[in-house]
């Protein structure tokens, strides 16, 4: 029983990180109908930015802010420079572009920061907190992780639901031509969407780094988990991304806990393949056929 609680708690924490990454994939998918395979690598780069700031002796919080800002800027630039030219082209072009960007970013990280594994400092202790006299598998850093991701989710929800700029972003995502007729600068909205998504992705990178160490391909597996979470949630649904992330986090934690950590990646891929075979539209998408 104690084991189960312990696996559940670590599953929730990891799940929140996958949710953040899934959310960034979902935002980009909603806006531009592109699966951004470079999302993880973009988070990796900003984590290196963060560790560079920490190495200079600045605080973790300062590093966090700079890393997320860097993510926002990188996301916006990627949309403007790389994605814009392929947006009206066949979907395969965008797939190749984001895959190419993934490889490019990992190579750049290797050149600039080297390929060795580095530890990334967490903001808080990673020792489990005491409940009564027993230590549970939930550290202050885990609590920070959960709160940070929830805060970002709530922020995005407020932006999309209750502000006119969020309204315009939704409008631009679903009917760009109609939105243009109503005076919406669709291109600007898409850039903003990529920027916000990359900001969320940066946060995921920073939060996962203390667990997986930092090296140029440290986000590859995490991207698979985030992607599976996004598919589980339906790719189109932000709420689905949150729940999908938690689901994957829990599933992998149980698999890793009971069957051995080496099975986690395989477990994620099995879930992904099973999902794509059984329910490719995900669990939370209202099926809405796209007019072509």
């Amino acid at each position, binding site marked *: 029983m104690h084991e189960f609680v312990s696996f559940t708690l670590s599953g929730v924490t990891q799940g929140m990180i996958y949710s953040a990454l899934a959310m960034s994939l979902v935002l980009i998918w909603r806006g531009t109908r592109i699966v951004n395979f470079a999302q993880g690598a973009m988070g990796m780069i900003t984590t290196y930015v963060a560790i560079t700031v920490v190495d200079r002796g600045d605080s973790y919080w300062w590093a966090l802010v700079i890393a997320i800002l860097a993510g926002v800027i990188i996301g916006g630039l990627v949309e403007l420079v790389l994605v814009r030219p392929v947006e009206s082209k066949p979907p395969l072009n965008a797939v190749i572009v984001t895959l190419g960007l993934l490889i490019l970013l990992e190579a750049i990280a290797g050149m600039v920061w080297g390929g060795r594994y580095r530890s990334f400092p967490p903001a808080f202790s990673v020792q489990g907190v005491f409940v009564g006299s027993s230590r549970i598998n939930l550290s202050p850093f885990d609590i920070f992780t959960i709160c940070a991701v929830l805060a970002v989710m709530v922020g995005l929800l*407020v*932006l999309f639901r*209750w*502000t*006119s*700029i969020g*309204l*315009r972003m*939704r*409008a631009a995502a*679903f*009917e760009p*031509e*109609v*939105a*243009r*007729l*109503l*005076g*919406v*600068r*669709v291109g*600007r909205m898409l850039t*903003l969407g990529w920027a916000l998504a990359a900001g969320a992705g940066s946060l995921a990178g920073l939060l996962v780094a203390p667990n997986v160490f930092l090296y140029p391909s440290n986000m590859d597996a995490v991207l698979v988990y985030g992607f599976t979470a996004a598919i589980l949630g339906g790719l189109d649904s932000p709420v689905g991304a949150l729940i999908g992330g938690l689901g994957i986090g829990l599933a992998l934690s149980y698999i890793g806990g009971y069957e051995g950590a080496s099975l986690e990646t395989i477990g994620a891929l099995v879930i992904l393949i099973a999902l794509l075979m059984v329910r490719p539209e995900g669990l939370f998408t209202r099926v*809405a056929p796209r007019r072509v």
Partner: protein
Amino acid sequence: MTKSTPIDVRECHYRRMPVLAASEVTVRFGGLTALNRVSLTADTGEVVGVIGPNGAGKTTLFNVICGFVRPTSGRLEVDGRPLPRVHPHQLVSLGIARTLQGVGLWQGMTVLDNVMVGAHRRHRSGFWSALLGLPPSVRTESAIRDSAVEVLDRLGIRDAANHRPASLPYAIQKRASIARALVAEPRMLLLDEPASGLSAAEMDELGELIRELRSTMGVMLVEHHMDLVMTVCDRIVVLDFGAVIATGTPDQVRDDPAVTAAYLGQEVGQADAGPVTGGEPEGQA
């Protein structure tokens, strides 16, 4: 500009230019000439009908005005100033709004949200203050909401505000799409087949609405239903195979033999059966 203003001497020499003027606009798609040297004007205070058989180029004409299609040659003027290249998102600032064939509403949003998208140009707060939710943008948000509600009220569909389009009768959806165009307070409203799918009674209401709009703006109307066109239009431009074959009042056009031959002659007998050949494919561009 009311009638009672004293006559401005300058106006005698330089008549105010019409809101919208197309001159010699030609559009070719490969070997097909969709529009052939089409010239027309539309101004506030009038309803201009654009009619013609399917494939005559009516929607292409709208698409040229909206910047979806670039003319091969010819030019567009707004208020007498030539527009070298129109981008769709600039239209609203130029005072031009357009509805689409069908309804084109965002199905995932409420009617109010749909209309609010159209309202943002009127109430601008800076991009950054909107994104960060600073106080000026909060005021803007409520101003946007208010003006959207006001337009829904004016069109008599305020009750539909918090519903999603799919749950509403088609006529209400059509009205909502007009509301979305009106909320930007255009000087020129382009209506692309606003009557399709409406019942006779609903079409009468639409006719009343269009006549009412004429007092504050100009209306350009592409429509198949001849009853509506003949009753609401001040002027009619008839297109056939991409060229203007007649222009005039409804009576003049009705009696024009070229029009009868090209269009009315074959269509009149079947007109009541609804759009004979169906709607043109949406977004023909």
